[in-house]
């Protein structure tokens, strides 16, 4: 059955919600940060800030250098979650079939038989009006309409903010000729370079490429890339709730750039502890560990490592990160001075179904971790922790308390 899929994306969601709440911010460069500290990371700039060169992931000093009049606000997660719930409720009421993509993006089936929305462009205009009515007059969305999720998302990206672009099924092949490969979601710099080395520069090139050659270069992802190049969905549209959790992660902007990775190990230990604890709280163990590091001038590097068995032990995650960092250093990809560290885990499994450790020491450690979680659940995080975490935990506490005064944390 022919589908008409809309990709609906709240424009600069977090920053726009702050501007909706506080009209004094409207039309002014605004950005939301996660932590109120001297050096933080921009999590969401407004369109006014984006036009001045402010980007997600930029440190606040860099953002202020590019845009001195930038208004920086602490994030308000309860507000954003409430807005997200209203957004998806509205989409569901109007269309009847919605697939959640993220907190501020979703796909809707405009051809759902129960809703009889009629012309897709008219339906999309109605979605825009309802969003202004329910979320606020400052809130805009960009909508792309097409025969698949891939085409709808690509179409929506063409005009931001407050755009509406429709691509008909017979227009898709010629339209894909005009789009570079990295315009597709999931194709970033490194994949783009590898495809360019194979002579593939546009999405149409990707769709015409030999699928066996792509599979040899990219594994199973090569097949998915081939589908994307033809404007087809690797994963079909599926109406329902939010997709299952993919992973857990934590990152931290360090108070000073650290000259080497070994020196930043205390911070790494705390981040791995936070990731492992959250993972265990959700009943998960993970097989893939991902480490990302960044310097103060935004030069970053990341790599992941697949473990032989799934783990929920923070020490295993720390060790995996250490090996990833060694690998990056050997390749000359580790930044000279580290300002940001991010740790995440993915490829999740049910931790209760993992085989117990083979040896008594492993089983004792497993029981000890469970006991420590019980104590921390009752008396608060970090009521009890492994000794290796002590220095990192102290630094985090001093850093949070002192904010502007970091003399005692400065590397020797």
């Amino acid at each position, binding site marked *: 059955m022919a589908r008409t899929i809309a990709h609906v994306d709240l424009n600069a969601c977090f920053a726009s*919600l702050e501007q*909706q*709440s*506080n*009209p*004094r911010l409207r039309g002014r460069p605004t950005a939301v940060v996660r932590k*109120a500290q001297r050096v933080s990371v921009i999590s969401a700039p407004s369109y006014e800030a984006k036009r001045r060169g402010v980007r997600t992931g930029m440190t606040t000093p860099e953002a202020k250098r590019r845009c001195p009049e930038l*208004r*920086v*606000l*602490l994030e308000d997660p*309860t*507000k954003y979650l*409430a*807005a997200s719930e*209203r957004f998806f409720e509205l989409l569901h009421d109007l269309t009847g079939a919605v697939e959640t993509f993220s907190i501020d993006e979703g796909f809707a089936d405009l051809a759902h038989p129960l809703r009889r929305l009629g012309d897709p462009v008219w339906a999309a205009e109605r979605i825009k009006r309802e969003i202004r009515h*329910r*979320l*606020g007059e400052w809130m805009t969305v960009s909508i792309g309409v097409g025969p698949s999720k891939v085409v709808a998302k690509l179409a929506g990206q063409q005009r931001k903010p407050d755009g509406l672009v429709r691509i008909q099924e017979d227009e898709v092949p010629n339209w894909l000729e005009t789009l570079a490969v990295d315009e597709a979601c999931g194709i970033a710099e490194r994949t783009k370079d590898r495809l360019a080395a194979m002579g593939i520069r546009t999405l149409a090139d990707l769709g015409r490429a030999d699928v066996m050659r792509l599979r040899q270069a990219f594994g199973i992802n090569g097949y998915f890339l081939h589908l994307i190049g033809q404007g087809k969905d690797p994963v079909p549209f599926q109406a329902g709730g939010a997709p299952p959790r993919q992973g857990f992660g934590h990152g931290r902007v360090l108070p000073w750039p650290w000259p080497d990775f070994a020196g930043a190990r205390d911070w790494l230990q705390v981040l791995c502890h936070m990731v492992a604890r959250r993972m265990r709280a959700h009943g998960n163990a993970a097989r893939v560990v991902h480490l990302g590091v960044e310097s103060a001038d935004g030069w970053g590097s990341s790599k992941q490592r697949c473990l032989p068995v799934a783990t929920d032990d923070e020490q295993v995650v720390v060790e995996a990160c250490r090996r990833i960092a060694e690998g990056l250093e050997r390749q000359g990809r580790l930044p000279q001075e580290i300002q940001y560290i991010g740790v995440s885990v993915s490829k999740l499994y049910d931790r209760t179904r993992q085989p117990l450790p083979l040896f008594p020491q492993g089983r004792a450690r497993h029981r000890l971790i469970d006991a420590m979680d019980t104590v921390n659940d009752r008396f608060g995080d970090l009521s009890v922790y492994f000794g290796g975490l002590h220095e990192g935990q102290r630094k985090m506490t001093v850093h949070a308390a002192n904010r502007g005064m970091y003399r005692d944390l400065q590397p020797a």
Partner: protein
Amino acid sequence: MDVWTPDRDDPLSLAAWFVPAKPLEQRLPWLKVHWRDEWRRLQVTFHHQADRGDRRIHCISAYDGSTYYRLEFDPESLVWKLIGVDDGAE
């Protein structure tokens, strides 16, 4: 960050109009507030709920044309609090 918090002993009187039949975001369209010897009519710009421990409170953003107000309302104790103001003061 330019939103400042008023003192605890900076009193506030408030009148609110609720439209019960509407969805949450339209239930409280505007407020009348007496603060610092002045009556002010505030339009509600965003209204949502948040958990504070085991209580569910209402978080209300409002604007009087020049000043932004951030208020919280506890429906159990019926206490309103003015927790943030942005009037352009540095």
